[in-house]
């Protein structure tokens, strides 16, 4: 059992981090904490992608005249794009929270919902 967990520990970490982030997104009422949760959630996926590119005994994929075992750089490149996406998501989310704060004077979702209960 222990061996099974240890052999694939990177995947376990990815799942655990993901669930921590997901919990924050669902359970936290503070909008900033929700964004933090969302970032953690996305980061766990980056970790998965980065770890699948690993090849045992592999080296940096730069051709140096001799044949060698290289790690797979493609997932890493994909994740560079996904990181940019993640940063943009966070930026847009913060911008929206600033707008929400200006409108309602609070960033607690419960308090906002209480305020707008009687709006249509």
């Amino acid at each position, binding site marked *: 059992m222990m061996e099974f967990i240890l052999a694939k520990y990177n995947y376990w970490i990815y799942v655990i981090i993901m669930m921590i982030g997901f919990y924050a997104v669902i359970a936290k009422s503070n909008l900033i904490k929700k964004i933090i949760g*969302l970032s953690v*959630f996305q980061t766990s*996926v980056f970790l998965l992608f980065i770890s699948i590119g690993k090849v045992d005994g592999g080296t940096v994929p730069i051709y140096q005249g001799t044949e060698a075992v290289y790690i797979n750089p493609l997932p890493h490149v994909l994740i560079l794009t996904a990181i940019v*996406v993640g940063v943009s998501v966070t930026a847009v989310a913060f911008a929206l929270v600033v707008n929400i704060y200006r409108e309602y004077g609070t960033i607690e979702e419960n308090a*906002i919902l209480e305020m707008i209960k009687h*709006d*249509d």
Partner: protein
Amino acid sequence: MTEHLPVLVIIIPLVLALIAPVAGRLNRIYSWAIALLATLFSFVGSVLLLHQVMYSGTISYWMGGWEPPWGIEYVIDYFSGFVLVIVSFLAVAVTIFARKSVADEIDEKKIPAFYGVYLLFIVGLMGMIVTGDIFNLYVFLEISSLTGYALVAMGKRRKAPLAGFRYLVIGTVGATFILLGIGYLYIATGTLNMADLGARLPGLFNSKLVITAFAFFAIGFSIKIALFPLHTWLPDAYTYAPSAVSALMASTGTKVGAYSFIRIIFTVFGVQVFLNQWVSVPYFFLIIASVAMLVGSILAIAQTNIKKMLAYSSVSQIGYIILGVALMNPIGLQGGLLHIFNHALMKCALFMSVGCIAYKTGITNIADLKGLGFKKPYSMVAFTAGALSMIGIPLTVGFVSKWYLAMGSLENGMWYLIPVIVISSVLMLVYFWRVIDNIFFKAGDAVKMPATPASMLIPTVVVAALCLVFGTLAFIPVNITGKAVLLLFG
């Protein structure tokens, strides 16, 4: 020039999206003009591409000359060409509509930025349609989603930023699931090209990795297309967004999501696995789609805000599209594809006519529509045309797709789906009748309504008229979707 057209329809609006906010600093009309120019270019380009597909078959464009599956491939076939033409046409219509509507509803200072974001949204959607690479799909999906959140939050109502934020949270979770699905497929096959995946996946369908990948795609796209019960972001987003944004998002946003989902199901996974191995998946989606069709309509009846009513109506319409897909037979799928086309036209007409009423008055309550039929005859007739199509009266577009969906259900021996379609349509009659009754048969106050500018009225009436034109000349979309279905069933 023409051989680069598949990428130019994306690149030109992308570049112009960056120029629009800068040009808007000189004079804010420039940013609108640039948006119109970009969408017009894309529309003409899309029509040329579809024309080219009709005469010489599928176009495969290699990004940077790299041969797929190594390079990114753009694929224009009957399916993507068709959806591309719809989306770019509606983008032109909404852009013309947007000039006055946006000037009325959005802060003058924000208008240049608005058109930049607006164009990026369209670029994202068009990119999702033409790409043949699954990771590229994710990137374009995120471009359209991120700009979508911002566009929703630009509404002038107090709840708009909150609606945008909630859409962002749910949407990002959905997009991350799609990214995970892509990762799992990459682990299983080592490729990201959709056609290549389609060739490599058969034989791997017993692998838990591939099954999980499909589950991630299913949930991710269900969020993106607002399939019941993951639709919770949609009503608020459509209600509080500016009128032009509601019209564009409701008509194209979820449709393109549905398009990508169909691509994933039919091109990547292939129809055989759903017919032979994963037979419970279509049944699951049939149930969900039926519930969506009914619940969406019932919730729409309960609304007093007309934009929210139309938004819930969208939830039920998504049910129709997914019903067609989940039938997994050519006629049903054709019904689903026709419904993508039809619903895009109908919802665009409906939201634009609602936008015409809201212009300068801000009216969105159904009760305030009393007597408007004589004060705003053109936009109200357009609304009625859209509503009749939605219900599915013969000679309107709605009838054609519902007919195909019913035929598709019979083909599978699922006669019990026909009452679901009929009941859902009757419920639509109920909620649209309530509005039409108010508009034409109830006397309103003698308050004078501000005149609707022609630049808002003309696109509204044209799109509404197309609901009737394509309902009568139904053979045009039917022919094209027929060829698309042949392609997807390979």
